[in-house]
């Protein structure tokens, strides 16, 4: 059966194909999900922690890096990079090399 449905509520839909566009999944009540390929273009969160990077894969590297003893996650380092940028900008302003 194919067709367009507007404002139809059903407790047990069985969708076996097609594409879901521009829709929130699990917006009120989250449930299990299984994916073959997961691509994220916004923030990616797991277990209450949110990685700043757009790429979900970065969250994996972040976890790996912390667990393998590098002591630095990608999300933490992006915050630190911003601190470095702020420090450099402040230095340039103090030296009169950049307008306030």
């Amino acid at each position, binding site marked *: 059966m194919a067709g367009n449905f507007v404002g139809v509520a059903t407790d047990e839909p069985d969708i076996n194909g097609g594409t879901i566009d521009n829709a929130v999944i699990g917006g009120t009540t*989250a449930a*299990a999900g299984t994916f073959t390929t997961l691509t994220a273009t916004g923030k990616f969160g*797991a*277990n209450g922690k949110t990685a700043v990077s*757009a*790429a979900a*894969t*970065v969250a*994996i*590297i972040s*976890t*790996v*890096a912390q*667990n*393998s003893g*590098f002591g*630095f996650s*990608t999300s933490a*380092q*992006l915050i*630190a*990079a*911003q*601190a*470095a*940028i702020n*420090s*450099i*900008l402040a*230095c*340039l302003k103090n*030296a009169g*090399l950049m307008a306030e």
Partner: protein
Amino acid sequence: MDTMYRNVALCKARGLPVAGWQSDRPILAVVGGGKSAAQNIEVLKNWKGDIWACGSVYQWLESLGILSTVFCVDPQPCLAGMVKGASKALLASNCDPSAFDVLKEAGAYVETFDLANENVGVHHGPTTASAAFDLSVKMGYLDVTFFGFDSSYDEGPVEEMPERFNVSPRTHAFKTEPEPNMVRIVTNGKAFITSAEFFMQAQWMAELFKTLPSVFKNRSGGLLAAMIADDDYDCTHISTKLAEHVQPIQEAA
């Protein structure tokens, strides 16, 4: 962390000069060991400014007749071997005391700096190179060019470069070191093999280059150049050794 605090305390006790602002600094080249550094040897031989060599790069540049200041933030004792022969050094106060001992014995001129603790000190990322940005400007260098920070070991077309973790890529322009924690990154239409640490270095450095292009210039290739050109990147593979650290996500009860 105890080692870091111990190193800092021992460094302070030496009473060495602290790197600081000077208004008439020349241009600065910061040199890493990536393969593209070898393509810039003539540029560096004719460089009309100061040169900082990161860690083991110092001795490579010296062997090519290029004078530089050895620059490092690493606390590992192996740094002592890397600074041998240097007449000028710029070391973080948390570097291993043995490196300071070697430099003292050689009569080298050594300046130190503190890495950021809270908001005081030099801000840095996962590698020595990442500290060069904040430190150089704090010292008054306003035209800083980075060479040899490719942040990757191998690269190629995405379709022609599947997993290549079973081969040992050349890691430096002048040597090869074992690197078990490998990742494959796809960005800017190419695939790159690198370490997790260098991936994070590239992420950090790309952010700085894009934000402050009037001060910092990149003449490195590899993953770093690609990540400056393209904000979108994906890690598609990780090495078996690195995968040992990955934990599966637990489903909610």
